[in-house]
């Protein structure tokens, strides 16, 4: 099952995400400005750009706000792809932009635990008491990624990103089972964060830079932002509705 991932080079990865970003739309000021100059005819029926509710706004500048090191980002990307892999249903985490989603989130309130109680003293506590680390999510991700790489080198003498699929799975499983020693946080907790963030990136509105072109929603059959279902709610028929991003409200 890992063969198809074997030869995935960094260039391939960038190419994949590059194709996807070409179709991505941002909302906000840039989106609105450019949209004003686009005629409706340019937009309707092109199918080029569905993330913004069907309006083309031109080039999108996707980038990293958090990870500065190429390898860290690569380890993250390879790990989330194992959690949510590409298959016949559609793109995996990389194709959906999940690594960028996580990177961008780590650079903001999510990463700095802005709404969490972070005062000491800190004690490990029981599992029923939840998150008790003094580390922020940004710190946990950084140290978890380093630890994954370290574990790969220890077991296979090479970095995590270069491992075979089942070797990567073995290491992720070790984190999940809390078999890895991490400083300041349980490896199981890091795994849970990583898994949850992967699903968030796959299925959050595309305004957050994941779920590229709403491919996550299309696979799942979730129509995203729709104003109302009052006309359809009583039907017996399953409705396959073309999804819309919340950013379509801004055009």
């Amino acid at each position, binding site marked *: 099952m890992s063969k198809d991932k074997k030869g995935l080079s960094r260039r391939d990865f960038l190419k994949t995400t590059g194709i996807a970003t070409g179709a991505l739309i941002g909302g906000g000021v840039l989106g609105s400005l450019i949209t004003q100059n686009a005629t409706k005819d340019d937009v309707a029926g092109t199918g080029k750009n569905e993330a913004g509710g069907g309006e083309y706004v031109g080039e999108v500048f996707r980038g990293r706000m958090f990870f500065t090191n190429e390898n860290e980002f690569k380890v993250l990307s390879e790990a989330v792809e194992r959690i949510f*892999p590409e298959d016949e249903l559609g793109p995996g985490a990389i194709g959906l932009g999940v690594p960028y989603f996580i990177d961008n989130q780590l650079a903001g309130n999510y990463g700095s635990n802005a709404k969490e109680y972070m005062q000491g003293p800190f004690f490990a506590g029981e599992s029923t008491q939840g998150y008790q680390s003094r580390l922020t999510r940004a710190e946990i991700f950084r140290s978890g990624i380093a630890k994954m790489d370290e574990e790969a080198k220890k077991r296979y003498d090479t970095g995590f990103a270069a491992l075979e699929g089942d070797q990567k799975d073995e290491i992720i499983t070790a984190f999940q089972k809390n078999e890895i020693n991490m400083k300041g946080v349980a490896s199981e907790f890091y795994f849970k964060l990583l898994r949850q963030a992967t699903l968030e990136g796959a299925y959050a509105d595309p305004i957050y830079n994941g779920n590229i072109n709403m491919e996550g929603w299309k696979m799942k059959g979730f129509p995203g932002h729709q104003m*109302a279902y009052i006309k359809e709610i009583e039907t017996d028929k399953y409705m396959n509705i073309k999804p819309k991003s919340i950013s379509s409200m801004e055009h």
Partner: protein
Amino acid sequence: MVKTLDKVDVVTVGVGWLGGIIGAECAKAGMKVVGIERGKERSTADYLRVHDEYRYAIRYELMQDLSKETITFRNSRKMRALPMRQMGSFLLGEGLGGSGTHWNGHTWRFLPYDFNIKTLTDEKYGKDKLSADYLLQDWGITYDELEPYFDKFEKTAGISGEDKNPFAGKRANGFPTPPMVKTPILKKFEKATSDLGYTPFMLPSANLSESYKNPDGQTIAACQYCGFCERFGCEYGAKTSPEITVIPTALKTGNYEVRFHANVVEVMKEGNKTTGVRYIDTQSGEEFFQPADVVVLTSYVMNNAKLLMVSGIGEMYDPETGKGTLGKNYAYQVLPGATGFFDEQMNVFMGAGSLGMTIDDLNGDNYDHSELDFIHGASMSITQTGVRPIQSNPVPADTPAWGPEFKKASIHNYSRTLSVGGQGASMPHKENFLSLDPDYKDVYGVPLLQLTYNFTEQDRKLHKYLTEKAATIMKEMGAKTVMAGNPISDYDIVPYQTTHNTGGTIMGASPENSVVNNFLQHWEVENLFVVGAGNFPHNGGYNPTGTVGALAYRAAEGIIKYSKAEGSLV
């Protein structure tokens, strides 16, 4: 330096449903009222872009900022209590409207049985049905006494429903608006439960079936079934909330003001009366004393209890001796249920927070408990609230949590999964209580509230019995595979369960066993009222807001009465 402000008639701490109801009723009666709210102002206009699962349902946009204040938690007195560092088990609200902004809108009246639970249980099953560790007590008010206030709250909110529940208390009037639509998913439940001999009916809903003008002249719009209710605000003004009903009603009188970004840290007291509240302007850091003739605590269960504790009002409950009432009888709920996987795809993403059908045959004492080793039960419902993709990844029990099999199964089952769930009542236990934490403080230097809680034998037995019933219903509904809920063990504060916390500031007929009387007036400080689900001496098998709303109208009546002739209202 604390700056003293001009005195007002009434000050409420927190402006959600309860602050709004008290504010509206007292302001209409000509009293000057100030509502003090730690959060910000917000309205329907802020929810135009609310269909964003990540921001609202996952990152909790509308919820309390825990970096400023949280609670600490332990399962038992033997454990070290530690802060709830991130929100999980329940979601605390903040800002205008409070939890009334992001609720689903299930609006129930607790059963007549609930209000007299101790007397009725003893009469029918003997005094030893539950051990002495369970602090079961009557509420000091009957359903019939509370009926006019239920009626009033339902009319204010425009509740949509049908009077077809054979177990419900008697109603003076029908529901203000007809029930919501009956969808194919609801019909599956209706048929299955009917075939099993139960009596299904449409869930009473605060997402309105049609546009409605309430007695105060406020209009609530008709629900559009967009599927974004719980954890979200309503962009249509179709989910009844304080900020579209009671708060504008209060403001319209000219006697009402809401002060935002103001965090109350102490209820001030001289002799046996309160003189007002001390609060901190969270933007400037300045401290103010707001004098008032009457102080009403209308914040959430946790904060109401905490303010009494840090202000030294009332005797703290001591689990060792059983003495004291403040913090006693904290209760939660258990959630028996079953999930079913179907062959056919269903429009699960459409819905509304309160779109559902319920049976009450297994709630309260609506069935015989002579041969059972627990009391009470749960309302059992199917709801079609709008299933969203980050939170909903249903997979059969033997599926891995990640990887290719997980992806396939979670995508396949997303639109093929239904659940039947119960809201299991929870009985008060001597070891479950609220107190003050000795170590951790909030950002203003005030101690955090400490929660000591675990599920008890009664909870586990109730949960097991009703989970089996839920699985039977799901099977009857035609599920290909039925997955019954796991048995409950220790209470875990991490996964979301329910924001139906109760107790700690309970009501009753005597100062010996309760904090407030049946007007929610404090037994020791007669010009202090404490209102909320904290008043419940036990937790029933429903969502609390309907009963809490009724209690708030009762309290408002008491406050107006008190303002004319001081003294105890009972």
